[in-house]
């Protein structure tokens, strides 16, 4: 029985990885040659078509900036919802939950007009601001915080900790797996965000990688040039892929702990 499970996991893993192998194969294949061939021409062509170095830097700044702010906001909000009592708590929390279900694309018009009023059109900050608070993150962390024994907080209070210190010394360390899981979701989500950055920014100095990729992937007038598209796709996913391989163990164990699949 174990053997069957083992075998089927391997089969599933291979199936899952097939598109990735396909992309790698196409990126290195010379389209003009029949049969097997290897070329780096596609990569050179893709790299030269857009300022990818700048886009990399921007993507890093945007993704890390959003995550840094999110970690602060979700920690504080999750603590409030988990441990403090106030009038209308249930309703406010419900409103937060409803946000999870609204696709951000629907909010492009209202968000962009806020950005225009703030006078920060075409900045990296404009890309980041709508994501500074994550309803999903708050929900996730609140559940984790609720599972932490209240006695620990009382003990911290006895020791003279104020609220911030209690959160920092008691709650944050115990919720580490949840933070890692949320961080992964946030980073991969922001990494692939496309439409909002495209609409809210004009200059290359503020635009992320996905905008560079779109130049290739959306060539509906000319038919897709799969080799170059695949090469550009590899540029975009490579850092995430590397990070995942390096931290695989931590990621998987934190997902087990936090109970997200």
């Amino acid at each position, binding site marked *: 029985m174990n053997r069957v499970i083992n075998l089927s996991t391997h089969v599933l893993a291979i199936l899952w990885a097939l598109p990735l192998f396909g992309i790698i194969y196409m990126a290195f294949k010379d389209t003009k040659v029949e049969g097997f061939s290897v070329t780096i021409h596609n990569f050179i062509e893709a790299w030269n078509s857009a300022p990818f170095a700048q886009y990399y830097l921007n993507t890093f700044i945007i993704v890390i900036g959003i995550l840094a702010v999110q970690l602060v906001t979700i920690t504080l909000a999750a603590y409030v919802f988990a441990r403090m009592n106030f009038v209308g708590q249930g309703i406010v929390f419900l409103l937060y939950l409803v946000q999870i279900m609204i696709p951000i694309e629907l909010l492009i018009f209202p968000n*962009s*007009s806020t950005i225009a009023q703030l006078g920060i059109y075409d*900045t990296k*900050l404009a890309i980041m601001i709508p994501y500074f608070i994550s309803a999903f993150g708050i929900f996730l962390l609140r559940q984790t915080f609720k599972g932490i024994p209240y006695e620990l907080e009382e003990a911290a209070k006895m020791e003279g900790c104020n609220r911030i210190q209690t959160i920092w010394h008691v709650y944050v360390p115990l919720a580490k797996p949840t933070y890692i899981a949320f961080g992964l979701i946030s980073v991969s989500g922001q990494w692939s965000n496309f439409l909002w950055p495209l609409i809210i920014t004009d200059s290359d*100095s503020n635009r992320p990688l996905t905008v560079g990729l779109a130049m290739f992937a959306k060539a509906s007038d000319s038919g897709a*040039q799969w080799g170059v598209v695949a090469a550009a796709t590899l540029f975009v996913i490579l850092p995430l892929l590397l990070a995942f391989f390096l931290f695989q163990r931590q990621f998987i164990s934190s997902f087990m702990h936090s109970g997200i699949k």
Partner: protein
Amino acid sequence: MKKTPIVLALLLLFSMLLSACGGTDNKGDSSNSSGDTINLTWYYPVNVGGEVTKVIDGYAEAFNKEGIEVNGKKVTVEPVYSGNYDESMTKVQTAVKNGKAPDMAVLLSVDLFQIKDSIIALDDMINNDSEAQEMMEDFFPGFMLNSQAEGKTWSIPFQRSTVLLYYNKDMFEEAGLDPEKAPTNWDEVIEYGKQLTKDGKWGIELPATISGYWIYQALALQNGDGNLMSDDGKDVYFNTEEAKGALQYWIDLSKKHKIMPDGVLDWNTVPTDFIEGKTAMMLSTTGNLTNVKNNANFEFGVAFLPGKERLATPTGGGNFYIFKDIPEERQLAAMEFIKWIAQPERAAEWSIDTGYIATRQSSYETPELKEYTESFPQALTAMEQLEHAHKEISVYEQGKIIKILQDAIQAAINGDDVSEALDKAQEQAEELLKPYQ
């Protein structure tokens, strides 16, 4: 008692982000037009692959060196990539709504009715400018069809295309057909297709996603003497006998004659199938010429679309629009740039680089394009077909109505009754158009 340095550090980072990002990049429209230069913002979509951005940047650089002046101020242009056509439209509409309208944008020529309130009619500007008049007279008349409405001119042709028939000459020869003779009417398509379909290879492929409605419009135009919509964009005619016959023909190609694969064929994979020799013929845009030329390792030909009652193709592609909410001086500057980029030599160059049809008749007199079409006569066919060009479908509520039509086409391909599908599409479209009548 320990401090909480990391929380403080994060808060510090947060405030730094706010101040740093907000402050530095603040280059609004106000600073663009101040001083003695006018820096135009130009939103452009890319629909033929990433290398085109380099060509566009090259144009901008060349133009900025040119030193063209309006009101004594030097005009420069800054191209901004804005996604595909749909995303460009969303970006433009968002920007206009927030008072951040670009100076000009390339959008689908058929999107006119959707943005008419945000753009200016160009007639006054053209009438006061002999160069502009000359330019307008030189554009292929077929490309101007979608620029005009209510007796005014709203946009200027830039990257334009038509539908073309591509065929694999090697496969024609193998099947015992004359490789210099493409099918000229629907019956011949079926006859040729039957000879070409064998060993898992297909006679013809018609794509039904993305711009599939456009391919369908070509068939509907061929099948009678009408079009799918009225000129004022307020009526559609999806359920006429011609329109139904065209869709029935499409479906018969696979269901009855078995010369086309079953099911909805994807816009982007049809050219790939053609290049890989999986289909002997395809209908696709002229924009594919360069792609097929670069990647096919067999002899291929292009030809006018096979006709029925008449030869016909809709035009397609993107035009320049100039926006309303900007100072007149900037509008004039935008026109200067459009005139510059639409010069016959540049239109010829753009055609060679992208595969779009050069928009100006005199482009085909330039040495560059003459030389190019001599070595690659396929590029001429697209231009010659323009005399059979008709207006591409362009109506109010464009996006929704195109979706209705496309859904009906795909439903019929997947087995729904042709007549019912188009009747339903007509009904839904009429409902949407009611407020405009």
